[in-house]
């Protein structure tokens, strides 16, 4: 294992005003290995990779690259040395062509700054061919899909003959097929001896593709382990200092009367003949791969979309398909997946965000009752243990987990009977995740009916009393009790896919 490391980091520290983001961090990357960097949000992963990519200057410590101590002067210097960062938010110019983006800021020019267009195009073509991309160098990047845009960034690795490639949450917005292609590409890089740093919150991916795992917590390295010698439980314990068993809390299975029943709900092209029910105190999981129609079903129930056919029963009484306003008034709440676009006004504080959908509850003759607003804010801040400096701190400054808690607070303060959570923990750190899981259990125990949609199998299994497996717009199986296992779910989802393909 200890052949010459391609990149070694020795005792790196980096301090920001008030925070020690990196504290004596050391780790190394071997040629041809995929090295995972994991940790909760704020553990120092982003800072570390920005130091490697030349975006931050470390306060102390050294970087040994290809056997020699190296100063990384800036992002361009890092790239030219062969260290490449692939950003989570893709770092491309949509209006420029693929070739121009591959060489962004490092275009081949003569000494008067005039572009050598032919050379640019030829080199970019070669890089794209090496990766087997299905598009040419002249296409405008803005017209490509997210996965293709990511390939453009990866093509930089070819173009600059990178020795180290750092992936930051590369699968965040990819479909499963695209993810498989990405992993194929990563394995290709690996075979050619490139050292790869892989940063992700998704543990299944980390166990799938990486060779070693380095865990960061509060800016310090907790340890580096070989992936094949460890398991999820141990890594999680290193990350948060407790075990996975405590990580999922399931509400006591004490159910009341039925809150919602759906019969034969259909919408052509999206889903077909979906039926289920959910009771007070019950957590119902909806599992399926992206594109299975999970979000579309709940959006239709809530009234965001119109159904072609189907019947809804609310508290055992037949109702017409509602509008969103009617749904809210009945006591239904839908917490959408994309909290930034749909959930929060980022410039407002927690107080204003919490009261936003229920201004009528907080006002007399249109004048806001601020003390009441504040009281509700404080109630949820302590109930959900939201970390914020005060009621007016802009939510844009909060971590993803704390933002998500405000999205929940906002819906909870209307006192709903049924709450639907669409991917409630996507993109947030492990600590906040378990707080959200506890909250789900707590809501159910207080008698709410809860529907949780999630792509993460452990999460769905961990929090739900009963799980519906969806595939290609249909409910293909239902599991509860001892039948709630990963194997069953995988079988149900993949078996159905196989049939459909045959």
């Amino acid at each position, binding site marked *: 294992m200890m052949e010459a490391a391609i990149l070694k980091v020795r005792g790196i520290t980096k301090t920001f005003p008030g925070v020690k983001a990196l504290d004596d961090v050391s780790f190394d990357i071997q040629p041809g290995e995929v090295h995972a960097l994991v940790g909760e949000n704020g553990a120092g992963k982003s800072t570390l990779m920005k130091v490697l990519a030349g975006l931050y200057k470390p306060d102390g410590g050294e970087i040994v690259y290809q056997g020699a101590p190296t100063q990384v002067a800036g*992002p361009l210097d890092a790239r030219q040395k062969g260290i490449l960062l692939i950003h989570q938010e893709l770092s491309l110019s949509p209006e420029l062509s693929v070739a121009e983006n591959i060489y962004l800021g490092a275009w081949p020019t003569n000494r008067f700054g005039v*572009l050598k267009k032919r050379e640019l195009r030829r080199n970019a073509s070669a890089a794209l061919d090496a990766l087997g991309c299905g598009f040419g160098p002249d296409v405008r990047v803005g017209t490509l899909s997210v996965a293709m845009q990511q390939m453009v960034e990866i093509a930089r690795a070819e173009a600059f003959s990178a020795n180290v490639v750092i992936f930051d949450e590369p699968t965040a917005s990819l479909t499963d097929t695209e993810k498989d292609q990405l992993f194929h590409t990563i394995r290709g890089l690996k075979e050619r001896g490139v050292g790869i740093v892989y940063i992700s919150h998704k543990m299944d991916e980390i166990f799938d593709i990486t060779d070693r795992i380095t865990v960061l917590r509060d800016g310090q390295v907790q340890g580096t382990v070989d992936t094949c010698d460890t398991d999820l439980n141990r890594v999680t314990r290193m990350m948060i200092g407790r075990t996975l068993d405590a990580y999922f809390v399931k509400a006591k299975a004490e159910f009341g009367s039925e809150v919602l029943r759906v019969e034969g709900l259909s919408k052509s092209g999206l889903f077909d003949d979906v039926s289920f029910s959910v009771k007070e105190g019950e957590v119902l999981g909806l599992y399926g791969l992206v594109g299975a129609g999970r979000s579309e079903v709940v959006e239709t129930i809530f009234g965001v979309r119109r159904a072609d056919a189907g019947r809804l029963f609310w508290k055992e009484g037949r109702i017409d398909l509602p509008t969103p306003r009617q749904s809210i008034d009945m006591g239904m709440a839908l917490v959408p997946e994309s909290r930034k676009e749909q959930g929060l006004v980022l410039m407002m504080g927690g107080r204003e965000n919490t009261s936003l959908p229920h201004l009528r509850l907080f006002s007399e003759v249109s004048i806001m009752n601020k003390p009441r607003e504040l009281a509700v804010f404080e109630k949820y801040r302590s109930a959900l243990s939201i970390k914020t400096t005060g009621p007016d701190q802009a939510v844009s400054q909060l971590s993803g987990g704390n933002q998500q808690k405000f999205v929940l607070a906002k819906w909870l303060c209307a006192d709903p009977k049924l709450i639907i959570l669409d991917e409630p923990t996507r993109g947030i750190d492990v600590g906040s995740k378990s707080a959200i899981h506890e909250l789900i259990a707590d809501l159910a125990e207080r008698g709410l009916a809860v529907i949780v949609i999630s792509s993460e199998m452990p999460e769905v299994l961990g929090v739900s009393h009963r799980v519906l497996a969806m595939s290609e717009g249909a409910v293909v199986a239902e599991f509860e009790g001892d039948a709630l296992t990963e194997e069953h779910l995988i079988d149900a989802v993949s078996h159905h896919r196989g049939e459909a393909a045959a």
Partner: protein
Amino acid sequence: MSQATDIRAGSPLQSVVSWLLRNHIWVFLALTVTVFSLASPYFLTVNNLGNILTQAAFIGILAIGMTMVMIDGEIDLSVGAVLALASALAIGLQDHMGVWPAVFLGLLSGAALGFLNGTLVALSGMHSFIVTLGGLIGIRGLVFVYSGENALMVPDFSYTEIPEIYLGPISLTAIIFFALAVLFQWVLSSTRHGRETYAVGDNIEAAHDAGINVRRHKIINFTICGTLAAVCGILLSMRLGTAEPNAGKIWELWTIIAVVLGGTRLQGGFGSMWMTIGGVLTLAVLRNGLRLLNTPNYVELMVMGAVLVLALVLDKLLNHGEVP
């Protein structure tokens, strides 16, 4: 060739259509020319067309610099005032040092003010709208201080004969405008600086992360914009033989309108000199045509306002789904 030429288009016809979709202002220009040709017998004459080009050239030269700054995602509101200062210096200093040194100092003043604008924007992080709004007011004040509220007269009227060179019906001023436009289109499409301009305006974080020196880059484009404003001021002083302290007032607005009309995006990242030429000519044709038809001044303004909104609606419709 526009930088953004869509390569997916296969046949020549397709590529012409896709070029026109992205440079729709030329369709609009052809339309206005047709309308005025039918409406007035005086419009489609060599003489009048030559006039239109000369009239267009002044806003046009300002618009070239503005296009550079706007593709960067910035704006320069001070060009009208910079123009007035350069024209006042070029005329006012002639008594002390002769014609060409005075002209040179006029140019230098524009470059220096552009550099100052750019430096303030790049280093302070303030939005260029605010910085150059300050410039618009402050520099205009400086012009009044220098010229003492009076129009400065050129000491020797041979100065006004300098631009009286014609290529057929096309004046030297118009030739300078077209030459500069071609030059800067080349800069945009074929040089590192041009690529940087699009990259910075399109996704400033990506540009920064790619190691582009965003600050230095912006300072250069503001300096170009200021220098071209001074070029415009000097050409204007040659044409008029006087430098009025109020010269170029609200020209910054006409300039921005011309650039936006052309299709360059206010948020940056998209645009070209071909678009800007189209916008400038359309504006000039509208003004000229409406005057030939003896349209009262206020009606002219109403028509121009309506046309601007219409052109932008057209832009939205034509590029629906193409430009995010």
